């Protein structure tokens, strides 16, 4: 199965998790997701997700001047975003447990 297809439904959680760890700008979010192992995730998908989460009031945004190049548009998580992340994490946990059981894998530590 194509990992990018499986990932699509949980990209929100992944992006929220990255931004929750630290405020960040799009380019860096893409890089961190790839570094974490989501090699297939598309730049456009990440930016689209950031835009949607921002519109949904789960993220805030601010500009920071950069010495190395252009200004950066940082995203930061807020209360609403954290609630979404918690909800998404539980959904993922439940989903992952279900699939683990189906695959006969040992229960992972909670």
């Amino acid at each position, binding site marked *: 199965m194509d990992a990018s297809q499986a990932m699509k439904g949980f*990209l929100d959680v992944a992006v929220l998790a990255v931004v929750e760890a630290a405020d960040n*700008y*799009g*380019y860096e979010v*893409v890089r961190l997701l790839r570094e974490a192992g989501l090699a297939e995730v*598309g*730049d*456009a*998908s*990440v*930016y*689209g*997700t*950031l*835009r*949607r989460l*921002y*519109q949904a009031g789960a993220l*805030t*945004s*601010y*500009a920071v*001047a950069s010495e*190395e*190049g*252009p*200004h*950066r*548009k940082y995203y930061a998580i807020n209360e609403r975003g954290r609630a979404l992340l918690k909800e998404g994490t539980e959904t993922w946990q439940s989903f992952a447990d279900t699939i683990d059981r189906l695959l006969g894998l040992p229960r992972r530590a909670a």
Partner: protein
Amino acid sequence: MTPTLGVVELTEAGQGYLRRVAAQLADLPDEDRVELLEDLTLHLAALEQEDDDRSLEDRLGDPAEYAADLRTAAGLPPAPRPSTRSSRALAVLGAAARPVRTFVPQLLPGWWVARGYLIVLLLSLLPVNSHRDFPVPAPGGSHALGAVLVLLAVVASVALGRRAQHRWHLAMAVAVDVAVVVAALATAAQVPDRLVRTDYVMVTPPSPFTDSSLITPHGPVTNVFAYTLDGTPLAQVLLFDQDGRPLRTGEQLWWKDHCRRVIEQPKALDGVAIDHVYPKAYVLDPARRGLSGTNVVDPATCTAKVAPSVVLPKVRPGS
């Protein structure tokens, strides 16, 4: 809140990519479009800082696909169909053609049947013959054979049509269709001749006067009588024309007494009858048939003269 970002400088390639994505987002509300393009501008600028020789298309994908992914992930509606004048015209045509597109497949089985019939009909029409080929073709003059062939051809044609989902079958079916249509059109030009006139073939009955008759103002010559100057009738004379060709007369078929007569021809050494021996020896038909060929006559009533009575000129002796 939209942060202020200041001026961002992009390379030409970056600007081109940005423009092409922007073109795909043109229908979005200003706020969404500006934000997404701003993100992309910054992203492109950041990518240009990297030490990577790959093109933007290689790294980010086709601009149209990038824009489509952006829309999907952002929960925005997909791009509407391009609405240039020609594409609008195409859309109108497409809508108008939709009933045709649904109707044509329903007609196809009918065409498969017609195709099988046409193949046999057209092949039957190829040789000019006197048989009526329509509506049932008669290859070799047999309507029964035609009916069987039509049945087989229809079955084969329908089978071909049903299997035409595969590329090769489809190509073959289209080739057959084109051939049948072309042949049908070519044949249609001759339809009045081939389909109608075949019933009325002119038959010329064999005639005793067709190709070998001597004709005089009084009618066809059916016998020749030769006499020597002293009035002696000559028997079994061979007559030739000025070029040495045997002189042939017609055969007398009608006799005053309605008794049929036949010619007794002398035969050459090889047994072949010599037909230009005169006078012809007309003798009564041994089967005693009459002129109609079916009635039997009494030879006693057959009194018509075979040789005419002639008046010979008086010849001055010695001339």
